[in-house]
């Protein structure tokens, strides 16, 4: 099958999945009473005093299928409702909290993926050696660590014992005053990048200092996952004929491992990148809630415990759609670079 027709087929398949995602979210919404559901249609705080009017206006006591289409229409107009916890619309809140989470992801994702691949390769290359046993034990420990507990223990040591060496939140008070002052231009809302662009090294340093513990917390569990995957896939690859050929023709061992074996062994890691994305989103909620790091995950957590229905469902919808699109991009890249995928006539 040509790449183009594969692309069209995949885009076409996207429609029922996205429709299903919206139905599932809407179904969950039906478990809440009308006055809570009404929050999904609010666009302005002044409407909050007139919830009955909104229930009337959007027909929240009407038949369910009618409500679904009203709601879907609102979603297509970009209206996800009002987030009462932060006092702004859900769409605004998502854009407001996104940069902080991006900042966290920009630092953690490369550590997770490159670190996992590197450790996995090392372990497989020295199978049953000291490195293998150490990393394997480390992976089992890392994989069993409750992220939320690990983060708190880190805080207890590096914030409590070392007197504020690596503090929680995003910036110290002095620096957040500086960042919000008129002389500081916020180009991207990513503190460390804005710091560089404004030539304010104190901001860069301060934001990095606040990122250390969240990044470690988010990375440890996921590195363990990729390391295990990479190790077993690398072992399989090392047993293949092309590795034997490479060795037989006298290539240095380093080249055999890094070029011939590892490149092939990385394919399974690419296939689970959708899963890694989901794991990072999961981890972000927990990590941000531990460190009071005000990003999307923190917002999702605050809104969930305060039963802010519109926010939590808006966030679920947002992350669901993002997740579907990520998986699509991964599959397309995969098909582009590995023609075998398309020859089968689509995906399983």
């Amino acid at each position, binding site marked *: 099958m040509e790449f183009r027709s594969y692309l069209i087929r995949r885009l076409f398949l996207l429609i029922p*999945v996205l429709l299903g995602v919206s139905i599932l979210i809407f179904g969950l919404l039906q478990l809440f009473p009308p006055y809570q559901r009404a929050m999904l249609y609010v666009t302005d705080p002044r409407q909050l005093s007139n919830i009955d009017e909104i229930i009337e206006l959007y027909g929240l006591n009407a038949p369910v299928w009618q409500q679904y289409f009203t709601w879907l229409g609102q979603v297509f107009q970009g209206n996800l409702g009002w987030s009462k916890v932060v006092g702004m619309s859900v769409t605004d809140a998502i854009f407001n909290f996104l940069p902080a989470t991006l900042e966290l992801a920009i630092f953690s994702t490369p550590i997770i993926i490159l670190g996992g691949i590197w450790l996995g390769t090392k372990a497989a290359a020295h199978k049953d050696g000291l490195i293998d046993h150490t990393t394997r034990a480390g992976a089992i420990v890392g994989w069993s660590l409750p992220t939320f507990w690990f983060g708190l223990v880190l805080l207890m040591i590096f*914030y*409590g014992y070392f007197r504020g060496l690596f503090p929680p939140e995003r910036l110290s008070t002095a620096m957040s005053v500086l960042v919000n002052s008129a002389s500081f231009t916020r180009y991207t809302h990513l503190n460390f990048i804005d710091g560089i662009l404004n030539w304010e090294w104190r901001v860069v340093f301060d934001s990095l200092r606040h990122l250390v513990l969240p990044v470690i917390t988010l990375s440890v569990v996921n590195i363990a996952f990729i390391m295990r995957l990479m190790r077993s896939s690398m072992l399989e690859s090392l047993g293949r004929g092309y590795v034997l050929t490479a060795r037989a023709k006298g290539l240095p061992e380093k080249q055999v491992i890094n070029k011939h074996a590892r490149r092939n062994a990385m394919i399974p890691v690419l296939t689970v990148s959708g899963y890694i994305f*989901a794991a990072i*989103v999961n981890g972000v909620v927990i990590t941000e809630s531990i460190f009071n790091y005000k990003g999307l995950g923190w917002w999702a957590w605050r809104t*969930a415990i305060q039963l802010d*229905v519109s926010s939590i469902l808006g966030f679920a919808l947002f992350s669901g759609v993002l997740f579907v699109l990520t998986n699509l991009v991964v599959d397309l890249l995969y098909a582009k670079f590995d023609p075998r995928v398309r020859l089968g006539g689509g995906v399983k």
Partner: protein
Amino acid sequence: MKNLRFLLFHFKKNPLSVIGLVIIVIFAIIAALAPVIAPTPEGQFNPYMIPRDGYGSTPQPPSDTHIFGTTQGQYDIFYGVIWGTRTAFQVGLVVIGAVLVIGIILGSLAGYFGGIIDEIIMRITDIFLAFPPLILAMAVTIALGASIESIIIAITVVSWPSYARVIRGDILAIREEDYIEASRGVGASHLRIILKHILPNSIYPIFIMASLDIGSVVLTAAALSFLGLGVPEGYADWGQMINFARNWIVGTPTNTFAYWHAITIPGLFIFFFVMGWNLLGDSLRDILDPRLARR
């Protein structure tokens, strides 16, 4: 039977999996003997609610009356972690049981009949798999209200699709075997073929793999109650006990680790419980992985 002997042989060779099994057995004993180890105080109706010693907020260090000390709100940590073991087993076993039932029913329907039924069931799993699991679980938990049942339902809702898919794949492979064709030839009904011929031949690896996921189910449940969703306040649950301790990570000016017990003890219980399952699973997964088997 040959498979089982093969499994046992490899199992005994691997010291890590034996350690894992020992850890799990110890936890099972703790759960079974909870009423003996940590007796419920006289006159308390629900044994799963942790007894409190007053209403002060500051956690108290270990003492003779509270051997693990108390956490925020004077909840007894010892009682909490012991009965929390029961909660952990309950959540883990019920979720895995429910997920297996749903997965087997939907997975075998999809795999056996194929066609439009398969297409519909698989598209439904796609929809559920389109969410990061914790986010969907959070939404389901708050929709159902605070209780241990909500957590169980929420985790079941997010985990069944992957099981249904695995089971479907296995059944697809077996469906084409000669002995299935033979029983179809002698006129066996669909139900009989599925129950008597297909499931017994595909189910046992799935069963073992699923039970090893109890560790990660308990971890997710603990994460939810750590976030303050799910169990009511005071319910014996490890995740919630860490939630109680989160405001006490910074000790007193003279002793920075003054409240270490409140955070460390429940955390270690979760950690060892999950590690027990992971150690057991690490070797079993290698043995059960068909691509690696018999090498």
